[in-house]
């Protein structure tokens, strides 16, 4: 590239970079700096404490509990979403005439705003009155510390499996029929075809879908906030709910920011892990 072209390129990209820096880089750095302070604005408390919040959190059972809840919620919901999404995609792929209609119906939960979804499930879980409580003989799903987290996972899976299904379905449509014919000639049964042909070809798409879903699940908020608010007995208190309560409930801006930074680090690490996996696949193929 000639020097003049290079300068032009920089000039053209600059506005976008400035906007990006303003809306992403600046807040991230700001939160990072805040997390090194003890700051309670309403009382005029502003004090640099270095890594003290992080050292406190490292030995804090409440924080580790929230971290555990976050990971459990993420692993369970992403695993179920991928499994159900693939199943739905396979079923849709085999449908003929009604595929468009069925696809629309499957996608419906994904189109609803999170808070609307949460309200619907709140009704379903309502003790004694809600459908899901009544079928189970009056179980108080959201009120029992043992069932609250699984109940949240179910609601999240309902909402986001369609996303996985959509991506998987698109990939299924591009697999050449010749591959299946060849497999049939070789005498492969249905399960062998699925394991040896369909799944390996789906895998890259599923990795991407799982990446998106993991990032969302790690910072899930709306559903949990509306349905349980982190209760009962702290059983559904994820790191994001914890950060929210520290930030807005008690106005401990520095401490809450430290928790938010940890969520950020967790999300970044997960993204990095998935990208490595995707790259590994591409290098192998």
């Amino acid at each position, binding site marked *: 590239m000639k020097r003049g072209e290079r300068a032009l390129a920089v000039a053209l990209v600059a506005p976008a970079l400035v906007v990006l820096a303003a809306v992403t880089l600046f807040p991230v750095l700001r939160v990072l700096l805040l997390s090194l302070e003890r700051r309670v*604005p*309403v*009382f*005029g*408390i502003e004090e640099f404490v270095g890594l003290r919040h992080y050292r*406190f959190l490292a030995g*804090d*059972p*409440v924080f580790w509990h929230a971290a555990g809840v976050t990971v459990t919620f993420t692993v369970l919901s992403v695993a179920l979403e991928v499994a159900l999404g693939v199943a739905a995609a396979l079923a849709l792929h085999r449908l003929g005439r009604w595929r468009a209609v069925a696809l629309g119906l499957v996608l419906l939960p994904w189109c609803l705003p999170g808070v609307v979804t949460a309200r619907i499930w709140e009704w379903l879980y309502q*003790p004694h009155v809600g459908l899901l409580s009544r079928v189970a003989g009056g179980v*108080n799903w*959201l*009120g*029992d*510390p043992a069932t609250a987290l699984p109940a949240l996972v179910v609601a999240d899976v309902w909402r986001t499996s369609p996303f996985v299904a959509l991506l998987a379905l698109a990939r299924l449509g591009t697999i050449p029929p010749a591959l299946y014919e060849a497999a049939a000639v070789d005498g492969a049964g249905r399960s062998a075809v699925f394991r040896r042909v369909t799944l390996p070809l789906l895998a890259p798409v599923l990795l991407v879908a799982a990446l998106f879903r993991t990032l969302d699940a790690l910072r899930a908020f709306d559903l949990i906030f509306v349905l349980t*608010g*982190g*209760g*009962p*007995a*702290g*059983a559904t*208190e994820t790191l994001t709910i914890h950060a929210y*309560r520290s930030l*807005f*409930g*008690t*106005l*401990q801006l520095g*401490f809450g920011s430290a928790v938010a930074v940890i969520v950020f680090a967790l999300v970044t690490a997960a993204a990095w892990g998935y990208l490595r996996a995707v790259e590994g696949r591409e290098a192998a193929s």
Partner: protein
Amino acid sequence: MLAACGGARAPDDAVRLVLRHSRMVGDPDPLPPLLRQFERLHPGVRVASEPLPWTADVQHQFYVINLEGRSPGFDVLMLDVIWVPEFARAGWLLDLSERWRAADRATHAPATVEAATLGGRVWAVPWVMNVGLLYYRSDLLAAHGLAPPRTYEELAAQARRVTGAGPGRGLDGFLWQGRQYEGLVVNILESFWAAGTDLLGPGGRVLPDMARARDALAFRRELLAAGVSPAMVLGADEEQTRRAFGRGGAVFLRNWPYARELFEAAGSAVRGRVGIAPLPGGGALGGAHLAVSRASRHPDLAWRLVEFLAAPPAQQAIAAATGLHPTRPALVDPALREIFAGARPRPVTPWYQTLSATLQPELSAAVAGVKSPARALADAERRLEYFLPGPR
């Protein structure tokens, strides 16, 4: 210009005061007539009343955002009693110590004044009052020849006896508020008081008597484990327990005074069969205060509005229309007077929000049996020692 827009509009030179308050569900709404009366007494003053959002958390957030911005747009604020020290410490409230006469102060329930005092100064005037109390089924206790309990242990023993045999057989024993929210903190605090301890000790020490606090919390857990309190208590707030007791489903209930009217209403299943008694260690103080924003441009008039709204006639008008109780025991129904006089404020500290928010999940875990009471309190203590600077 403005005056030309509408005939009834205030003249341009009128002073406009803004009162921020949470909605009072009353029939008729008692506030507008009171404000018009104030305007007649103070010609040239117009009072606008602006309701707050519905829930306490959102109200708190509203106040914090607007007051921190230094241009609140209101002169007089209705405050939940637990916010007064926080807002005073933040510098948002006018010091009322000089304006509020000692003679009038002495007519209010002591707990209400204590709750508005920080650093020896008073920051708000009590407006409406709430206090936790014990409801019991007088018919069922009488059937066993029992007098209302004086301790929580006695309460549990009576509950077992009444639900074990006779007309109360199979009923729930003791209903209280065990959901993970502010109400749970209130219930546990009342148990702490009965056990002779508190959340904050002298000098602001967190959980000054760990052993007593642990035993009091363990006692609540035991009520649930032994079935004296049903499992629904774990997810219950005031209304859920009020309805269950109102259906005739339980012997004892801890609740606020508003439930009394509903129990005695026509068609109530427990009408004429409900007695009231003070809670063993005293009931927690609830209710609201009135304060003047330090950013108000008319502090003297704003104070006069506070004085007017908190005066006996206004408190009585509000009580008649809404069932919200006056803060002066002399104005309260004689049957409730002793209970109101024995009210105790929750810890009067600017850090109350932090205190409560930190405790809620821990207390909830303990009463649900997910964590041992000792462990839950230790975890809460560790965090509170970290969050709250000494002296508190």
